[in-house]
């Protein structure tokens, strides 16, 4: 049974990351922007796991673990902020939140 070469996983990870970036730049809703960040994190995780497999070392997995934990914390706080935003402003469109400028 032939094995899937690691490069393919890396390419997939790269594609996902790029799409995440695109989403990050394109989306206008705070929460979807948030999601695109999560997408990028996932892409990076995939790369981590792929490398861990490539070198047969566990450190990559440990990093993924940490990334997930941090993402969880980030989601908790970020969503709190989102709720606060929604409570104080009528719109969640980032383009309407441009008071902080020159």
């Amino acid at each position, binding site marked *: *049974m*032939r*094995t*899937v070469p690691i*490069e*393919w*996983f890396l*390419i*997939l990870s790269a*594609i*996902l*990351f*790029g*799409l*995440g*970036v*695109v*989403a990050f*730049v*394109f*989306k*206008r809703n705070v*929460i*979807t922007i948030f*999601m*695109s960040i*999560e*997408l990028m994190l996932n892409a990076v*995780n*995939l790369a981590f*796991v792929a490398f*861990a*497999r*490539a*070198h*047969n070392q*566990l450190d990559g*997995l*440990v990093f*993924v*673990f*940490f990334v*997930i*934990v*941090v993402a*969880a*914390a*980030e*989601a*908790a*706080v970020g*969503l*709190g902020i*989102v*709720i*606060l935003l*929604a409570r104080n402003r009528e719109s969640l*469109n980032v*383009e309407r939140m*441009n008071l902080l400028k020159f």
Partner: protein
Amino acid sequence: MSLPFIVFFICALFAVVGAVVLILAREPIHSALALIQVMLSLAVLYLLLGAEFIAAVQVIVYAGAIMVLFVFVIMLLNMRVEERTNFSKLAYVGVVAAFALLLWTAHWLAHSPAGRVVGTGAGSAGAFDTVELSKQLFRPYLFPFEATSILILIAILGAMVLARKEE
């Protein structure tokens, strides 16, 4: 075509489609579902790579907790179709740049000479040993581990402070 290849292609397809949908969807909830799809297919890929534990954690924490939070918030704020404003022309430049980076990276990886990425491919040597992973986590990485726990604590407090209604 052997099983790993089939699984890989299916999952990769699902993931990419999910990501694209995440971008194109106009309703946040659809984006969320697309993201969940991406995450689940990634979990399968982790299984393919032999990282069972990570796959499970991916599903439990990401799909089962974080995304639930997202969906929950979306429901709570009852978000519908996001409005299409366009104040930033620069964003398109960014998109172009991002695509350039993306394609270029893919190209670079695809034409990478053998040995740039050492080691065997997926599905070859069996699964990673979860026990070993835990040892890694609790011996050499103990300090970062504790640090993350502190981080979580802080995040909890922060979330509470943020979400509390000031009376």
